[in-house]
């Protein structure tokens, strides 16, 4: 990297901006206040949810077929998860093998009869991950990268099951933005924050939708009520 060229270009860009609007204020407080004012309009500029209850709204959205390639179910307790996973295998005629994300709350469950360490670098695998949040507005689950969360777990498998703790289901994307802000204040921002709203898809060939372009073809969300 030519740092001199870099400095020159940087200076050129900033001075060009200044020259175009020399009287614009640089008072940071004014700028921040103006920025906040705009956000006050969000309440009137977003769609109505299918229910006032965030979980219900998320479920209704998925059941209405508005989230591509996605189904969902509710579980009363996390202990029932392996059973649900077995049913998922049965539904899709899959061998009892998947990659379970290496987080404590999933690893400690009773996975008897199921192999939990598939190699997701191979194709046609099943992945199981723990979502940080759900978002009702868009029918999404959210994952954050970490020591326990390889982002590729959400993209390499052909089938993906995401477990969403009911207490972490948010209404709107704006609510998630507030949380992201709080995380940033604690200097704990992860490398990746992914809002996933359905399966991988493409319409690039003659406008026909195909699921499972490079990522998962089938997504199943399991909302756990005691989490």
């Amino acid at each position: 990297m030519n740092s001199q060229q870099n400095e020159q270009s940087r200076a050129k860009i900033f001075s060009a901006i200044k020259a175009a609007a020399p009287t614009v204020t640089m008072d940071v407080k004014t700028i921040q206040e103006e920025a906040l004012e705009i956000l006050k309009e969000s309440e009137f500029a977003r769609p109505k949810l299918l229910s006032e209850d965030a979980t219900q709204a998320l479920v209704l959205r998925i059941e209405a077929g508005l989230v591509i390639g996605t189904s969902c179910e509710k579980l009363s307790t996390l202990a029932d998860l392996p059973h649900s996973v077995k049913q998922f295998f049965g539904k899709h005629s899959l061998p009892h093998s998947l990659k379970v994300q290496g987080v404590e709350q999933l690893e400690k469950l009773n996975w008897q009869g199921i192999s939990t360490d598939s190699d997701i670098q191979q194709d046609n695998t099943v992945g199981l991950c723990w979502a940080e949040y759900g978002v009702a507005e868009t029918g999404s689950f959210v994952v954050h990268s970490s020591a326990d969360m390889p982002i590729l777990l959400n993209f390499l498998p052909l089938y993906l099951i995401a477990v969403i703790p009911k207490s972490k289901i948010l209404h709107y994307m704006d609510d998630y933005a507030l949380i992201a802000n709080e995380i940033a204040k604690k200097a704990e921002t992860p490398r990746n924050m992914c809002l996933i709203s359905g399966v991988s898809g493409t319409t690039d060939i003659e406008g026909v939708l195909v699921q499972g372009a490079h990522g998962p073809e089938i997504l199943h969300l399991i909302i756990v009520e005691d989490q």
Partner: protein
Amino acid sequence: MQANRPEDFSKNVSKALAQPDLKKIIRRTTDKAETKRAEAVANFPEFENARSQGQKVKDHTIKYMDHYLAEFEKNALAQGTVVHWASTGEEAAKIVLDICRQHKAKKVTRSKSMLGEEIGLTHAFDNSEMERIETDLAEHIIQLAGDPPSHIVWPAMHRSREDVVKLFREFHTDPTYSEEITDLVRSARRDLRTKFLTSDIGISGSNFLLADSGSSCTVTNEGNAELTITPPKVHIVTAGIEKLVPSMAHAVPLLRLLTRSATGAEITQYITFHNGPKRPNDADGPQECHIVLVDNGRTKMLAEGMEEMLRCIRCGACMNHCVVYKHIGGHAYGSVYPGPMGSVLTPHLNSLEVANKQTHACTLNGRCEDVCPVNIPLPKLLRSLRAQSWQKKYEPLTNRFVVQSFAMMAKRPRLFQLLSSCGVIFMKVFSRKGWIKYMPFTSGWTRNRDLIEPESTTFMHQYKKMKKAKSGGA
């Protein structure tokens, strides 16, 4: 397919109009986009409010662009991202290739980025020792075909299924022999999977740059962006400086507008915020993250009072609804950005001298402005460029003469009325049964349609006669 040059616009248009199936191919994409967008808007009663809010987010950021750029840089550096600045496209491409060479990269994977096309990364890599692998399905198709993109959302919309069948059979290592679209997509999935995982460097674009965190946001459907960015050791982002927004909360209104306007879906499947390189114990992710911030004519737009164009969030709605684009297609424009938004951008990214014809290939009907999610006054901007063109005398002499003569006459109403009456007499000479099929000086019109003959004498002539008769009779 050779890329067309913007200066060859008239030739490009003739070529396009002569293509027998072009209109059918274009409409296959634009008809669906129009219908789906209309449905999405109908299902979102708050759409106008969202548009107003989105416009405010953009205008605010553009107004304080130097503040937000400085904020972004500070916060990106704090995340461990290396920030680069490029005044021109060539500089930006060079920065990217230099980073790749420093890491002795042999293979680079790319997710879709029109900015990347704009700065000539395609060309730069193809002329280098490194292998460029496009991972977005449409970009993958046009890479195999050697085509330039023809649309900013569906770059391969000009390619049919039959074309894709042939390309995949020729280039994929384990191709499908089916012609079903699902099988074609699977073939690409197989072909690209190992390439994702063994790439040296992942290069992406950015839909939004968040100033308060120094982050980049990608908005995609295929998952190829995350598969491009996560496995390699290095991630490079190329982004225009106008991609800035103050924060994630400010990106949200634009996210509500973008997908609805582009494809009619309410949201894309993958919205990912990239906040720098791998954290020390991360299970995966690139060790190094670079962002190349590109000007390439954007500050020029600010200087020329065209800052409204910087609101553009690259949804493509304008071209989907443009009556001219729908007849000539994207390649005719000879630029990475076609249609209405491209006709305003290209003179700034390139030059007005080279790209002024496109600004005239527009009826100023305003549909583009109607559907723009951030209310960009595209017709007004196009006309301003025409005014600049006029000042610089880029218009051919004959056009200038005709327009100036007309204005000269029009500012002298008595002369204008006299010449109008003469015009009526002249036209009557050429009319047969109420229509003019041919007349000197009107070949532009009469080549393709008839000209109605003048009814009788001019209105003013008849009106004056009538008034005289009335006052005479009174």
